């Protein structure tokens, strides 16, 4: 088992210095994600302008995988429209759960999370933020999701 595949430099960097961390002023969409098994908790705040994700930030506490995944996700979806963010969700889902194959090139930096699939116990850590994003984008108000 190669830990370097899991804890790549990009992931360690985003864990140490999470991007888009903290509350978002003027957010109009929000969702909370919980992983009760871990005690991980994530709050996503989003400002949607029409269909476009104008800004997105996250707060909470989690492991390196969950923190880095949320940080990378906020970078990746900012500026996209809802439909495009959902496409990205599907590609991430495939990346985290399918046994092998090269990552979709359109995933960019998100492909750094491909090592997670060798660690089945940690897939939920990486996917929590994406499920939370889905909930935030689907709802008009606040929503809560759980990975258990």
């Amino acid at each position, binding site marked *: *088992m190669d*830990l370097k595949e*899991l*804890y790549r430099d990009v992931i*360690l960097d985003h864990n140490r210095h999470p991007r888009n961390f903290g509350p978002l002023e003027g957010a109009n969409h929000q969702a909370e994600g919980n992983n009760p*098994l*871990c*005690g*991980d*908790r994530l709050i996503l705040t989003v400002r949607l302008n029409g269909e476009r994700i104008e800004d997105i930030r996250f707060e909470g*506490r*989690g*492991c*390196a*995988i969950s*923190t880095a995944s949320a940080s990378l996700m906020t970078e990746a979806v900012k500026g996209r429209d809802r439909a495009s963010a959902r496409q990205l969700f599907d590609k991430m889902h495939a990346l985290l759960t399918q046994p092998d194959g090269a990552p979709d090139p359109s995933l960019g930096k998100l492909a750094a999370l491909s090592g997670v699939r060798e*660690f089945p*116990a*940690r897939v939920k*850590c990486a996917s929590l933020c994406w499920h939370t994003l889905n909930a935030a984008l689907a709802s008009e108000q606040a929503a809560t999701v759980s990975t258990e």
Partner: protein
Amino acid sequence: MAANLSLKATPPLDVEAVRRDFPILATKVHGYPLVYLDSAASSQRALPVLRAVQEYETHSHANVHRGVHALSQAATAAFEGARERVRRFINAASVKEIIFVRGTTEGINLVAQAYARPRFRAGDEILITGLEHHANIVPWQMVCEQTGASLRVAPINRRGEVPFDEFLSRLGPRTRLVAFAHVSNALGTVLPVKRMVEAAHAHGAVVLIDGAQAVPHAHVDVRALGADFYTFSGHKMYAPTGIGVLYGRQELLAAMPPWQGGGDMILTVSFEKTTYNELPAKFEAGTPNISGAVGLAAAMDYLERLGIDAVAAHEQRLLELATAELARLPDIELIGTAAHKAAVLSFTMKGVHAHDLGTILDAEGVAVRTGHHCAMPVMTFFGLPATARASFGCYNTEEDVKALVSALRRARGVFA
């Protein structure tokens, strides 16, 4: 457990011989020898336990208490023999006080629903402590919702102890029931249960002790403790999952209504009126976990053959060694530093989440528990989302402690 140590009288445990009784310990994990430090979650099974279960299933199985045929009698003898074994193990007065349940969780729920629920009213109080497992919190919250009683909590301090004066000050004329762990699963704290029982009794309250983390590590004498109810699980004491024990004082059990209805718990059934069976059958509706009870009895034989004092002394030595070794590592903080502890070591590493620690340790074959240990209020008290927890059993060695330390150094390296 410190209170029960009699080091000088105890011949040391032959750990290599013990390890040969646990074939799973020969497993390789990711190419490394398994270092199993998760016995507080579930211990491994000893060969004599596995053999007893196999022997029963192979040669003696039928339903119990039902048939006149030879196998039914053999099964009944095995099952009731296990009950007598349990009675001796915890020194209960009668086998009528030994109820087989699925585990500690079911034992607590049985008392909550069959003792507390029919009796308690608004204004009554149930007292627990701040270090309880969810299984000793939620069943009481459910009873409070059902009856209007209220739940009170004796807080813990930063060492993870329940200060006795804090406990005392929450006892009062409204306290009907007091429930606490004998040993904390998340922190390792050994509670002064005898004193706590005496104080609760002085206020007229009934006491339930969650003994899940105590029975594998200490002599438990329910009569010496004065416990009204004492409950524990087989799988934390080298027996199979799905079997556990609720001990209850006969007078209390006799006055309680049945919990679940079904076969075995009745004397007569008609559509107009059913009469209930005697203890302990009254609380054992349905076909029980017969082979589990047989395995539990074998585990008790096994533990007594090793000598519980010898096991406890061995585990205390490992706890002291591991505590000292971890204290020398940079950035490790021990969570739970009570004066009296069982061999449970909860800790955090600065800047590294417990789950990352768990994965990195696992990559070297070191199995620890990570998370909230089903004790979220404990985590909240310490302001932590999770800890890593190493727990020791009769088969652990100094080499296991060294492997833990080495894996922790590696984790520090990954997150340098």
